[in-house]
């Protein structure tokens, strides 16, 4: 059951081969069996899941099913879930039970999906290895001594290990695509504003975007169909009409113009990863696409720009965690200042503190122009690079991450090296473009991701391009041993 796609599961449920309750139990059993070593879930909502599954079975019986009705999924623990702890991977919110559903959560609820639980993540989505979580690191199902990537590492590990058919994630600088690459999954980060941010705990508001981690582009299309759309509660969500993503999957890609940015195949890229990526691009040529080299001349500015913009926004977004109304509060505060200082010192981990400090500095009087304003200007230059590129090509392809999954603890003490693991994904967030990572030929038995970047609101095309490769190859079907 756990190897079936969402479409196959939906068909089986409708055909009565098994019920949603049986399917849900199956995955709950797998979580019990495997998650002790993976640590991909922070909270498993067994009771609610079985209730939702029973309700889904009733809906299916009544002929009122959507393609997601009765399908178990997991949400990254950054999405608020009514009545269920929403920790954001932080001690700060270890005691926080959200009193409302995020829009994404509500949409899956309405579609009849079954929530298995909340997945582990880097604290407040700040990290690329899932090692900054208050709940401990997540292990990569392909190699338990390696990281699954981050920050949506729990969702990635859970889907890769077949503990759930699909999971939501969020991507601020690569937090869906990079763990998808490191865990052998399809990871879709839509256009900024395509998916509502309401109820998604903010890290960097101008960059954050919800998306999905799945085992195929087809599954991602079903997930996005539920998630996408304008939300009156999110002023930055897009008004553009939502495409029929599953219907767009089969489109012909003959004549597709692919651009390879020369800056993405530089010295920092592992040659074996580069070879895998080029093999996949060659496969596209066989499918009728044309390939040309392009330039994204400001690529080298993406990481420094990101590490001004994202910390600046996070320093403000995380100010509400002050021990006054919710979340962690220190014991016996002497006065207000003590309450603030100790609650925040105890509640936040080192990486979160580092970014709050960087961001506070960047926004301070006398530094604002040199850092924040300058970063916004570079952001425009980076967007312009992409705009020019999309005048010549339909999609841009390159590696998702510079290497395969690295070892636990390997980069944990070196923030700059860690930050460079998102070097190919960050520019996409700065520009607000959609991107998808799909598995290509592994290196030494470890997954490698091909990143495909599209123009604004081209999710349907990205899914179509990804799906056609998955029709022609079976890289995406590889399963980590033992799962």
């Amino acid at each position, binding site marked *: 059951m756990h190897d079936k796609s969402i479409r196959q599961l939906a068909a089986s449920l409708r055909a009565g081969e098994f019920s949603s309750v049986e399917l849900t139990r199956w995955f709950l059993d797998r979580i019990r069996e495997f998650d002790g070593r993976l640590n991909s879930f922070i909270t498993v909502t067994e009771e609610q899941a079985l209730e939702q599954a029973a309700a889904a079975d009733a809906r299916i019986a009544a002929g009122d099913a959507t393609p997601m009705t009765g399908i178990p999924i997991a949400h990254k623990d950054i999405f608020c879930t009514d009545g269920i702890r929403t920790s954001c991977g932080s001690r700060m919110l270890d005691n926080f039970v959200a009193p409302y559903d995020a829009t994404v959560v509500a949409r899956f609820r309405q579609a009849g999906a079954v929530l298995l639980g909340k997945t582990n993540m880097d604290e407040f989505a700040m990290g690329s290895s899932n090692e900054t979580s208050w709940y401990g690191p997540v292990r990569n199902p392909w190699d338990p001594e390696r990281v699954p990537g981050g920050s949506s590492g729990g969702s990635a590990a859970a889907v890769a290990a077949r503990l759930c058919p699909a999971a939501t994630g969020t991507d601020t600088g690569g937090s869906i695509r990079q763990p998808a690459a490191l865990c052998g999954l399809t990871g879709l980060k839509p256009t900024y504003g395509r998916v509502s*941010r*309401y109820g998604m705990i903010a890290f960097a508001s101008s960059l954050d975007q919800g998306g999905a981690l799945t085992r195929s582009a087809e599954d991602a299309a079903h997930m996005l169909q539920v998630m996408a759309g304008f939300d009156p509660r999110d002023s930055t969500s897009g008004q553009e009409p939502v495409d029929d993503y599953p219907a767009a999957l089969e489109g012909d890609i003959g004549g597709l113009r692919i651009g390879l940015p020369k800056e993405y195949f530089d010295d920092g890229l592992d040659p074996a990863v580069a070879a895998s990526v080029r093999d996949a691009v060659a496969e596209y040529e066989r499918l009728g696409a044309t390939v040309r080299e392009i330039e994204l001349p400001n690529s080298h500015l993406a990481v420094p720009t990101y590490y001004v913009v994202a910390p600046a*926004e996070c320093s403000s977004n995380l100010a*509400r965690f002050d021990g*006054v109304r*919710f979340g962690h509060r220190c014991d016996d505060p002497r006065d207000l200042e003590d309450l603030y200082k100790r609650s925040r010192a105890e509640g936040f981990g080192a990486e979160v503190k580092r970014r709050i400090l960087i961001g506070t500095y960047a926004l301070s009087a006398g530094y604002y122009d040199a850092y924040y304003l300058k970063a916004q200007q570079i952001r425009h230059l980076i967007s312009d690079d992409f705009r020019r590129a999309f005048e010549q090509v339909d999609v841009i392809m390159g590696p998702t991450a510079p290497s395969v999954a690295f070892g636990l603890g390997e980069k944990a003490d070196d923030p700059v090296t860690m930050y460079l693991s998102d070097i190919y994904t960050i520019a996409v967030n700065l520009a607000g473009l959609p991107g998808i990572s799909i598995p290509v030929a592994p290196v030494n038995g470890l997954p490698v991701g091909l990143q495909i970047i599209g123009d604004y609101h081209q999710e349907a095309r990205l899914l179509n391009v990804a799906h056609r490769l998955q029709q022609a190859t079976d890289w995406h079907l590889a399963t980590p041993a033992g799962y």
Partner: protein
Amino acid sequence: MNWETVIGLEIHAQLATKSKIFSGASTAFGAAPNTQACAVDLGLPGVLPVLNRGAVLMAIKFAAAIDAELGRRSVFARKNYFYPDLPKGYQISQFELPIVGRGRVELLLENGDTRTIGVTRAHLEEDAGKSLHQDFHGMTGVDLNRAGTPLLEIVSEPDMRSAREAVAYARKIHQIVQYIGICDGNMQEGSFRVDANVSVRRPGEELGTRTELKNINSFRFLERAINFEVERQIELLESGGRVVQETRLYDADRDETRSMRTKEEANDYRYFPDPDLLPVELDDALIAEATADMPELPDARRQRFCDQYGLGAADAQQLTASRALADYYEQLVAVCGEAKMAANWIVGELSGALNREGLAIEQSPVDAGALGGLLQRVVDNTISGKIAKQVFEAMWQGEGTADAIIEARGLKQITDSGAIERIVDQVLADNPEQVANYRAADEKKRAKMIGFFVGQVMKASKGKANPQQVNQLLRGKL
């Protein structure tokens, strides 16, 4: 040598929207603590602000009322600081690009001169909640009902040169925001708050160091706070001291200002554009919508009252002080038809009664229609002006309409000349000595002496005799 006072005001006008500026929660005043604060107002993790369109329309209206440039593209910014009644750890305000740009208001000073005061800008922002320090046994209570209430912060140029001018300007803004219906102007409930930036200098010199006065909740306190502060600064400078840039709280009980925090202690607010909100773009259609129901503004109405009703400048100024009062006046004129009489009654009897009981015109127990009914009876000679005052008092006490009171108390004026003549005859018969004196006097003295007889006749008729008829009859008989 003289000192020149320089004053600029920052006014926070609470906008009269039904819901908050970034959430759907109600803005009504006086609810139980934290019952009007939704997830957005509480700053819960994951929530996002959505701009209230009504607040934007009101800001546009204000811009039109003070002849200001509109910020066609304005941007919300975050003002970051920690305080328990500031749930998100930042206030959403506008910084570099406000919605209302440079404008001006005209003041009519008491000596009849006019003065133009520049408005630097006005911007939209959200209010914070309230910290309550009493009744919590050494702890602080936080009430977030007010958090997210829309404010228009109106910043003036440092154009005022005395406390009286500052009060006149504040009153003018108060009048305008109420006229155009964007603020209820209630200072006690904090709907209209004034902070004053005050400095002194030798005439012709550069601006002196200023202090900012806060916690002023009436126009009277505004004047007193500024005057206290000006004296304090002058004394300080004349004794060789230096004014420190700081925020000072006005203490109405002690009538003094006290240091709250100095510039060195001030926060670095780390303003930056709020990434949760799009820039506000004002197009012509929105501006037209906002100004479609623009009422006649106070200055124009004052001028019209002079032209149309023949009122003096002082009466016109007083009658247009608030839109409700001016509306009351025009309704009263419509009913009674006598513009001057209507003005006198409002400025005299009605204002006296309202002041006595501390009521606003909207709370008057006698509405314009009822008062008009009374004045009609004066116009048609049913009662005299003097009796009308008695009837007014009865109406104020809720005894009914003018006609009902006149009827019940038998106050109808006696116009039957036979009846008046009988009273006149009686008065003359009762006062033979005065009659003799009158007849012996010359014309000049007689004019004064006739008053005695009129008084006696009015007294005997309990004020109901028609005064013109009494005069005529007396002159004939004497």
